[in-house]
């Protein structure tokens, strides 16, 4: 004898309903992958958000007093500007270190070429930065001054992250809603398909609650089974994707990954969707039964 009691209605045997677990697995798989993409994108967005608060001002190489006067003037503009929280010139030693790989061991001061001067700028996180406007003002003092090249590319990456986050969540939710609609449709169709058996159970005195429980149990079992399969395959997919992205070094500036809270959220999706499917089946069955003679 089976451990799980058979359903009174042959929902696991008839074409209308028997594939529900597999369809649920497919929908949950796609939904989880989409939500995982959204979570990764959200993590990336947050990182970019922190990074984009840091920009670098680059001034062309110059020597002597002129250079110090220029640097001081640029620092004054930066410090006076509302969007800048702090500005620090990068020290000579640090600069040497930065360019060492390109110039070799020779001391830069021994050379003819003057090194570019860099200023690290921390932007005020509460003010939307107008980097173009700031650069214009710097160029009135030093025409060749440039600002925040990385910040510009961050900006694009961040927009991408934001896009993936929004569309991932949207696709994930649409798929979950589709799963609920599917459960409702299958429940309603099954009620019609099995109306003779439903009538027989009613002749034995079965109330609507008892009959609805058949559909509820079926939906719960199907969505749990499908959810488990979909979740497992989705997690393998996500891990493989993350692994290959990191090893292909598609993104050099930040590390893409799922945070602990993301894993927890993804693990909750199959459980929550199973509960919602169960409730949907119950309500649909009760509604359908109340319309049957």
């Amino acid at each position: 004898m089976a451990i799980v009691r058979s359903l009174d209605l042959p929902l696991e045997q008839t074409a209308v309903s028997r594939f529900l677990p597999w369809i649920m697995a497919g929908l949950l798989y796609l939904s989880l992958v989409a939500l995982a993409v959204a979570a990764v994108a959200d993590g990336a967005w947050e990182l970019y958000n922190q990074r984009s608060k840091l920009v670098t001002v680059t001034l062309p190489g110059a020597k002597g007093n002129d250079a110090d006067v220029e640097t001081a003037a640029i620092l004054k503009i930066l410090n006076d500007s509302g969007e800048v929280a702090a500005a620090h010139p990068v020290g000579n030693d640090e600069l040497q270190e930065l360019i060492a790989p390109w110039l070799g061991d020779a001391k830069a001061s021994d050379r003819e070429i003057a090194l570019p001067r860099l200023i690290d700028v921390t932007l005020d996180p509460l003010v939307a930065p107008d980097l173009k406007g700031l650069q214009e003002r710097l160029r009135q003092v030093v025409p060749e001054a440039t600002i925040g090249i990385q910040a510009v590319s961050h900006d694009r990456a961040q927009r991408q992250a934001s896009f993936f986050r929004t569309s991932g969540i949207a696709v994930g939710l649409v798929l979950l809603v589709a799963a609920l609609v599917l459960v409702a449709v299958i429940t309603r169709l099954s009620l019609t398909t099995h109306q003779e058996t439903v009538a027989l159970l009613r002749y034995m005195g079965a109330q609507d609650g008892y009959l609805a429980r058949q559909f509820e149990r079926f939906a719960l079992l199907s969505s749990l089974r499908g959810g488990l399969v979909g979740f497992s395959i989705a997690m393998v997919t996500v891990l493989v994707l993350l692994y290959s992205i990191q090893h292909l070094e598609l993104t050099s500036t930040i590390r893409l990954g799922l945070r602990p809270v993301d894993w927890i959220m993804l693990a909750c999706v199959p459980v929550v969707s199973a509960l919602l499917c169960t409730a949907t089946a119950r309500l649909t069955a009760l509604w359908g039964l109340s319309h049957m003679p």
Partner: protein
Amino acid sequence: MGHCAIFTIIFERIPQRLMLQLDHVAMRYGEGPEVLHDVNLSLERGDFIFLMGPSGAGKTTMLHIMGLIRMPSRGSVRIFGRDVADMNRDELGESRRRIGMMFQDFRLISHLSAFDNVALPLRIGGGKEREVRELVHEMLSWLGLTDVIDATPPTLSTGQRQIVAAARAAISRPSLLLCDEPTSNVDARRARRLMRLFTELAKDGTTVVLSTHNDDLPDRYPHPVLHLNAGQLTGRTLPAKPVAAAD
């Protein structure tokens, strides 16, 4: 004050003894001809009667009306002291749970095992799974079906299916047991077993109605016979000779 109490006792006892009452019941299917005409019948607790008539006389139709499966086109049905026309859906279900119906065409659920088919009325009635198992095993082994307990109806012989159908009708010890030609497909030994089951239930207070289209059963069991011919109850014969039901 004293006789008030006596009246109360009398009035409360009447609906308890009276299980089923058909009052001027007539039936037609859709726009078809009337197949039952002015049927009047009262059955009390523990009554055991045969409903006899040729094929097409209306036996099945009458049992379906008594079993609250069909509503009559005319007349009233009172069951367990209440008019069926006044019952809402929940009350109808409640009354139906006190009725055991053995259909002429069995109506077993084909994807369920013999065990699960017999267990249905108990589960519908909210029985605990442990008790359900015990009762169903007991019933099926008593009827000699232990070896096919996990088999589904399509794999059973007609006789075995009929016994499963009888077991399902009787398993919840209903107040009213309606059996539509219950022994038509089973061998003599199994037929005696079924009759013994029905008799035991009647002794415990179940009202039993068995339909049959041959004289065989009424000849061997001492119960009143209602004769149904062309939709009309034409007479009632009392048992001629008390024959001990041998087993």
